[in-house]
């Protein structure tokens, strides 16, 4: 029976979408603290304001991240959520699970927590939602000993990396996103668990420019698959598309009658670089003009495939708007081999070069994208030892305010004004 009346939340039980309220109530049967979750959230619905206190520094010994402390600001009314810390548990790459593993995790959480979770947090962690301080160490013990699993990141750390499912189930993945994500996560356990950075730092790995893990929008280093050779074309399949035998866009538009497939309008004309054309019933691509946007491949997955000489474009500096406004990650390395064979050596070297610099010059709470803005892209490139190329920008600068360096200008900056005056009366 309900411990608190929740007339407002109850209204969220109807409707076709899964109801977290119904779910909470169900869990409350076994985990009475869920009544207090319901009760406090109901109060928030009534007051239209949060009832959680600001922050709270808790954690497990030796780690600077992985737990987000949280306390109720109405603990007397809802003692079950007086402490309500979340635990960020490192998710396996691509977020596949065996039921055995999941059930085990749920068992541990049943023992130590509120009974509620998030699958998953926005960064990618498994979020175990709400526990008391005294449960943290035992929970951590069980997690590591019984489940072989660890906490994820929080604080001014490397955050838990994430990836699109890549080659595991996608035909377009230009490198092994899950292997890369896993290996780098393992390599950087120390950076994930012990704050040493000016602020948070995130990696995300997408297998192709569709970017299904939104790397370019959300990660300080975004590794996005691409290729350097030509799009593979199966002309027979092209004909099937034209004939209407294969559904456009893998069937993604099948819910509406968009008329007969028109390769000219739907593929050729929508190519952003206009580097495709039809010739004698065959689809032609001038690959050196292609920017590998994926559109044509998306529309005709059975006819077109990325090239075979694959790697990734590496972009740096994405972040949410606090403080200077949101940033997408900026293209820094146009093409990089991403391979387990050399243990992702190039990428690792690249990342560590960023860190070495940013840990030195980054201000407190300054994301690397902001540091880049502060010093300017040319300076960042030179620090990274990356030659400036036009691919780094959408367009060249339109203001004339170039910083020349003393050594670049014949004769240097030092001049003698008196000598000048002898030739130019004042």
């Amino acid at each position, binding site marked *: 029976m309900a411990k608190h009346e929740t007339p407002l939340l109850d209204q969220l039980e*109807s*409707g076709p*979408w*899964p*109801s*977290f309220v119904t*779910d*909470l109530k169900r869990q409350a049967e076994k985990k009475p603290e869920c009544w207090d979750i319901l009760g406090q959230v109901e109060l*928030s*619905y009534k007051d239209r*304001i*949060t009832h*959680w206190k*600001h922050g709270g520094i808790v954690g497990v010994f*030796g780690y600077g991240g992985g737990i987000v402390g949280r306390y109720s600001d109405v603990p007397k009314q809802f003692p079950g959520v007086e402490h*309500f810390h979340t635990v960020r548990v490192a*998710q*396996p*790459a*691509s*977020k596949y699970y065996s*039921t055995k*593993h*999941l*059930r085990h995790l*749920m068992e541990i959480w049943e023992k130590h927590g509120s009974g*509620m*979770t*998030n*699958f998953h947090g*926005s960064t990618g962690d498994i979020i175990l*939602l709400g526990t008391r301080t005294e449960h943290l*160490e035992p929970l951590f*013990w069980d997690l*590591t000993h019984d*489940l*072989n699993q660890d906490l994820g990141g929080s604080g001014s750390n490397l955050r838990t990396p994430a990836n699109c*499912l890549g080659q595991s*189930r996608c*035909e377009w993945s230009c490198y092994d996103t899950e292997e890369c994500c896993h290996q780098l996560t393992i390599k950087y*356990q120390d950076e*994930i668990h012990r704050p040493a950075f000016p602020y948070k730092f995130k990696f995300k790995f997408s297998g192709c*420019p569709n970017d299904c893990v939104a790397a370019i*929008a959300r990660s300080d280093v975004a590794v996005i698959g691409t290729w350097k050779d030509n799009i593979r074309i199966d002309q027979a399949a092209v004909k099937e598309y034209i004939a209407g035998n294969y559904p456009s866009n*893998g069937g*993604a*538009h099948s*819910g509406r009658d968009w008329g007969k497939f028109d390769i000219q309008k739907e593929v050729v004309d929508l190519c*952003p670089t206009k580097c495709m054309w039809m010739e004698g019933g065959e689809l032609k691509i001038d690959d050196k003009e292609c920017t590998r*946007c*994926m*559109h044509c491949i998306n*529309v005709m*997955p059975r006819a077109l495939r990325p090239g075979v000489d694959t790697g990734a474009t590496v972009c740096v500096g994405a972040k*949410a*708007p606090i*403080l*200077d*406004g949101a940033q997408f990650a900026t293209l820094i390395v146009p093409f990089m081999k991403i391979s387990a064979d050399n243990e992702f050596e190039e990428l690792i070297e690249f990342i560590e070069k960023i860190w070495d610099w940013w840990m030195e010059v980054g201000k407190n*709470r300054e994301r690397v994208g902001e540091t880049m803005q502060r010093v300017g892209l040319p300076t960042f490139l030179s620090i990274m030892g990356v030659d400036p190329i036009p691919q780094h920008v959408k367009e060249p600068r339109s203001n004339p305010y170039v910083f020349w360096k003393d050594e670049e200008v014949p004769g240097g900056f030092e001049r003698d004004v008196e000598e000048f005056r002898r030739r130019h009366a004042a």
Partner: protein
Amino acid sequence: MGYNPDKPMDGRISDLGPPYYEQFHPPVIKENKGKWLWHEILKPGILMHKSETGAEVYTVRCGTARLMSIEHVREICDIADKHCDGFLRFTTRNNVEFMVDDKAKVQPLLDDLASRGNKFPVGGTGAGITNIVHTQGWVHCHTPATDASGVVKAVMDELFDYFTSMTLPAQCRIALACCLNMCGAVHASDIAILGVHRKPPMIDHSRITGVCELPLAIASCPLGAVKPAKATVEGKEIKTVQVNVDRCMFCGNCYTMCPAMPLADPEGDGIAILVGGKVSNSRSMPKFSKLVIPFLPNTTPRWPETVAAIKKILEAYAKGAKKYERLGEWAERIGWEKFFEECEIPFTDKSIDDYRLAYDTWRTSTQFKYTSHTAKYTA
């Protein structure tokens, strides 16, 4: 055994990282990794991937509330045990995916899912709406300007048919963040629901000394609106801060740095709607979402204003856009003035940028379309 509080360091294990993913691959995935040839969405929520080995994997995608109980996770496991050899996965947008290696296994799985009420809606693929990426809201966070789970539930109930169908011009990605920290890709979503504060922080002088480092609080404000000040607390003069409210843009960064500066307020807080963002590089480069509705109130429990606004935008988009055109691509093609007209959104000065890169958004051209907005000039 277990944790022994008396000897906390004994047998301690750390820095394990996540378990190796491969052990969680269903057999058909493990065997065909890197060999996939093409895919097809057979029906909304049902994907088929074909391997060069001839193998096929059928994926059934179901919506979740993301906020889920142990019981619910166990139910997911039950389903996966029954139909999927004990494997499953979650997507980057918090849907759960059940995979089977044979077409014949799909229908029984679907029947099972359907038998469980509204818990496992099948959909979220192709040119439709998928799950709303969202954050904590009033369920867990200290800085939200709105709830997360409740708003998502209300919106998804209304847009449910778009989840279970593929009738839009393109995929339309909705995201919610409960404050300007934007935990998620709200800044790059077709439709973004953003919790916003509208009142400057209060200063809790009686607590500030204990909980804040004043220089950090002062430095936290991107507009320099937080200034050193003095106040009298219980007869004693203390060092504190004050806020120049005219320069405050309610970002909340000062509160993040200093608990004695709370912003949240029932009347002040609510939701802004941003639209037209995208992440993929398909056709056009990634785009930021743009603020089109500066404020809608927190009308609990179902946020009818927010739901209606989103519905309206979505329907105008569905009607106006061409096949493959993302919402932002549509708005740019027709022009933002037409976007506001088609969606019947009143335009306000709040949509005009006045932050750091503002100038680049001003219209420095005579090119524009006449709309209702210009009626008074052409009357």
